[in-house]
């Protein structure tokens, strides 16, 4: 269980960093839609349209790393199976 938690924590931490970096390493807030500029050729007015697109930000990265940290922290308080069985044999 301890090992599993640590593996999950490591996967979560590394995976979230890779996902965040691959999505453009956005140092702002997470975006669920992205603004696209539209220009009206006749009037020259610049409008904005929003397209649904998930761009993770530092809040996403922070939450994922905090989650990984919590999982790793929990794993510190768990006893390994082998230790438990050794203790049982001693008694």
């Amino acid at each position: 269980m301890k090992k599993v938690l640590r593996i999950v924590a490591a996967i979560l931490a590394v995976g979230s960093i890779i996902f965040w970096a691959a999505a453009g390493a956005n140092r702002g807030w997470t975006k669920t839609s992205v603004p696209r500029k539209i220009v009206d050729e006749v009037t020259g007015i610049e409008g904005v349209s929003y397209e649904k697109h998930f761009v993770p930000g530092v809040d996403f990265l922070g939450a994922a790393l905090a989650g990984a940290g919590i999982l790793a922290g929990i794993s510190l308080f768990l006893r390994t199976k082998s230790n438990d069985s050794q203790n049982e044999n001693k008694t």
Partner: protein
Amino acid sequence: MKTKLIILAFVASAGFALAAPQTFDFKDPKGINNAGFKLDAPLESINGSASGVSGTVTFDSENPGATTGKIVVATGSLMVPNSMQRTHMLSDKWLDAAKFPEISFEAKEFKSVKTAGDTTTADVTGTFTLKGISKELTVPVKLTYMKDKLGDRTPGQKGDLLVIRAGFSIKRGDFNINPGQFEDKVSDKIELTLSIAGASAK
């Protein structure tokens, strides 16, 4: 003599019709008309826009200083790139879009009017209403009159276009949007821009 009088009356009425103020409708079928807003925040500024623009403006190309009208922005059309931020922004804790569905500016008086060709710049004094609170503001605007250009923008229609551009700032505290609160997270100052085109069909 009678014929001459009829012709004179016709020419005079035609001239009057040409100089008459036109009413421009700012409901944009292309959805490009927009009002932008920007607030400073610690991590990154909050930039958004609203596309739900409507209203009418009466404009006389011979006398741009006599322009009057009202532009309305649907509060529910305000967008920011983060859906959670948008939900908070429209909630009763901030803009309360359900109770105050419209943001508006009603132009009352044009000052410092300067016209060069089809472009007029002026300082417009009018009533700005946000979250149910109305305040008098003076806003610099630029009007561009585009004669017979409606067909280029909306095929099949004949008429003129009027483009209005404006930029000004307000304080959210003045409009009862969490006055004096969360200023370390979201600035009190809100920068607003307006880029809209209205149509007057013939």
